[in-house]
């Protein structure tokens, strides 16, 4: 009996000791498996002065480069990251999220290897698709805002022509959103208005705010509700002059609206100027041009991501477009129109097939004898042709080339001449050093916060160097 008690004590001691051993072993295994970033292995040789550097908590020179601890504001709370750079202070060698309280299953994925591994060995600064890394753009836009506000007085009392007008921002904002405002004027009065913002992947801010993926305040109106309140107020007032804004672009003119409304004012003003004839709607470069009879064909230079090469054919007879067709062909000769008829290429469950939509577009072009009726949104979609839900940018580009050939007018040339600054800007973007990083799907805010923090660490090191 006593012998069994001793065995019991011995077994307990052995099991406890082994348990501690297993826990300690697993901790070191976990570190080597998941946290092997340079941030952890690097030994600080010299501490860097971070006083005056906003959001930088700690920085040091290590044996193989630099290590910066940065705090940035995430979607839910603060995100603290250790960012390790090589000796040049421009190449990121590792990123580790030390602290975060982002949404489980969404924003919390910024701490996962799948996201963080993207930063290993890349050149800073880093940016998300559609994100502008240059701070100058923002300040330039902010400076331009008051000028726009001053222009609003010219819209007072202006008579508006009936129609639907749309205006959108030229480049995505820092979160990758392109703002779009649409106004409908009927009998000289604004009858419909909408404001939304769309990301490159087609996510709408209104839907994201409804789903709780884009929140403004805990208990206030969602972004969508605020955008709708603004649009309703515009319809009610038939003017933008009631929207007085403060330095941050916020207004107290519409109850419950706490977001910055400058973007809405700018775009709505553009729509109203178009309606009032003060700002030209995109002009038709082929208006009045004589088209030479013949058959013209244009196709994309390279296949798209699905292997399709778009082809548009126009036939001009007696100076008018009499036939038009749009199709897309794969390398092996399969036609998208036939595939869509056979159900091998489907767009929607119950809508028109791709072929029917392409035919509807071609018919609309013949009917209008112009492309100017095809107004598109940020995703390249149009509501000008009933039943057409596909992106029509490809059709517009190729049909424009056919019309250029038929008329002898280079429609794209004047645009290039008129917009040298835009071209320069795009060249600048192309030359821009840095690395594009994929955001976590459904967690744009958290991804942006992480990227911003890393860029702040990079900026800090540049000033120190």
């Amino acid at each position, binding site marked *: 009996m006593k012998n*069994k*008690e001793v*065995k*019991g*004590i011995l*077994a*307990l001691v052995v*099991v*406890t000791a*082994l*348990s*501690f051993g*297993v*826990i300690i*072993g*697993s*901790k070191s*295994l*976990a*570190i080597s*498996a*998941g*946290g092997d970033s340079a941030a952890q292995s690097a030994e600080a040789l010299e501490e860097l002065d971070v006083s005056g550097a906003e959001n930088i908590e700690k920085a040091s020179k290590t044996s193989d480069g630099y290590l910066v601890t940065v705090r940035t504001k995430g979607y839910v709370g603060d995100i603290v990251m250790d960012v390790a750079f090589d000796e040049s202070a421009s190449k990121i060698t590792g990123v580790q*999220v030390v602290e975060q309280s982002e*949404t*489980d*299953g*969404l924003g*919390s*994925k910024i*701490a*996962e*290897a*799948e996201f963080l591994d993207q930063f290993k060995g890349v050149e800073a600064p880093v940016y998300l698709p559609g994100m502008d890394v240059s701070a100058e753009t923002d300040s330039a836009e902010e400076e331009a805002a008051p000028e726009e506000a001053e222009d609003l007085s010219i819209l007072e009392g202006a008579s508006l022509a009936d129609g639907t007008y749309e205006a959108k921002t030229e480049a995505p904002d820092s979160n990758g959103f392109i703002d779009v405002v649409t106004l409908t004027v009927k009998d000289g009065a604004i009858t419909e208005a909408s404001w939304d913002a769309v990301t490159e992947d087609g*996510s709408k801010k209104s*839907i994201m705010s*409804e*789903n*709780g*993926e884009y929140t403004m305040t805990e208990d206030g109106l969602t972004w969508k509700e605020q955008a709708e309140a603004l649009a309703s107020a515009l319809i009610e007032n038939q003017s933008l002059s009631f929207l007085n804004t403060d330095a941050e672009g916020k207004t107290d003119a519409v109850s419950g609206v706490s977001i910055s409304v400058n973007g809405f004012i700018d775009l709505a003003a553009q729509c109203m100027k178009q309606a009032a004839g003060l700002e030209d709607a995109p002009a038709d470069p082929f208006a009045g041009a004589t088209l030479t009879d013949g058959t013209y064909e244009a196709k994309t230079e390279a296949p798209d991501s699905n292997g399709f090469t778009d082809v548009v054919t126009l036939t001009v007879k007696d100076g008018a477009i009499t036939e038009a067709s749009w199709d897309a062909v794969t390398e092996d000769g399969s036609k998208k129109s036939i595939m869509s008829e056979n159900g091998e290429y489907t767009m929607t469950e119950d809508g028109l097939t791709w072929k029917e939509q392409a035919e509807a577009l071609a018919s609309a072009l013949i009917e209008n004898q112009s492309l100017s009726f095809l107004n598109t949104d940020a995703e390249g979609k149009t509501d000008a042709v009933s039943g057409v839900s596909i992106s029509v940018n490809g059709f517009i580009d190729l049909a424009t080339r056919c019309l250029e050939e038929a008329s002898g007018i280079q429609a794209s040339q004047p645009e290039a001449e008129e917009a040298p600054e835009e071209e320069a800007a795009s060249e600048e973007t192309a030359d821009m050093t840095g690395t594009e990083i994929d955001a976590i*799907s*459904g967690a744009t805010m958290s991804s942006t916060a992480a990227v911003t923090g890393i860029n702040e660490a990079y900026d800090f090191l540049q000033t120190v160097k």
Partner: protein
Amino acid sequence: MKLRYPAEAFALGIVLFSAGMKEAFAAGILVIFTSVFAELLKNLLEKAVPTWSLKFCVYIASGSVCASAFLTGFAVLGTVLTTELWIMVFIVGLLCGKHALSGNTDSEYGELLLESAFVWGLWILFTVFREFLGSGSIFGNTVFTASFQSKAFLNTTFAFMEAGLVLASVNGILKKDCKGMNSLFPVVPAMFLFHPFTVESFAGLPGTVWVIAVPILLFLSVKQTLKFARTGRFFRGLPVDMLAAGFIYMILSIY
């Protein structure tokens, strides 16, 4: 018919790791691994040591093995296991040990693995559904997003409900019930970790105690009432208690 699988451990595991398929996939297999380990250790020491030593040994070993396995496994997957979660998985290990010591498994490893596999499979299935409704993703990959999706599906409310539904479904398939299982073991630790509401008027310890105490008291009250409810055989006990906890969280999260 004895319940071979550790229902309480699975219930807590599902509450903790059911927002994403990846976590559910890993957590399920780790709970099964810990259960087998606990049963094996119990059988190994049963005749050699006195009962008090056996209990301590099984609890300590299964708790630490479970916590260590989760820590290593999740690190390999690249998922962060916070200290709070690490403590919770230690409790999952304790519940595996409790199940082994209860004698329900009777060294029937085959049945233990078979029944646990059913729980694991349904755990993943329900999690896929929740992940999709919550974020439009499956295994972290976005399938498609639509307006009906809401991240509310990823909250603890639906985690409790999933646990209840998974256990009831497994009971239904295996024609068993959760007799003798105590729902307080998985529910109370989960309520310590996940709070259904926050208190702004008094912060600090009193506020924390309040947000933990309220759901626990409500749960105890509902649990008492459920004893007299005519619930289906497969839902009786642990599954319906988990569903009740989910509804309590749903109501409290309004505040």
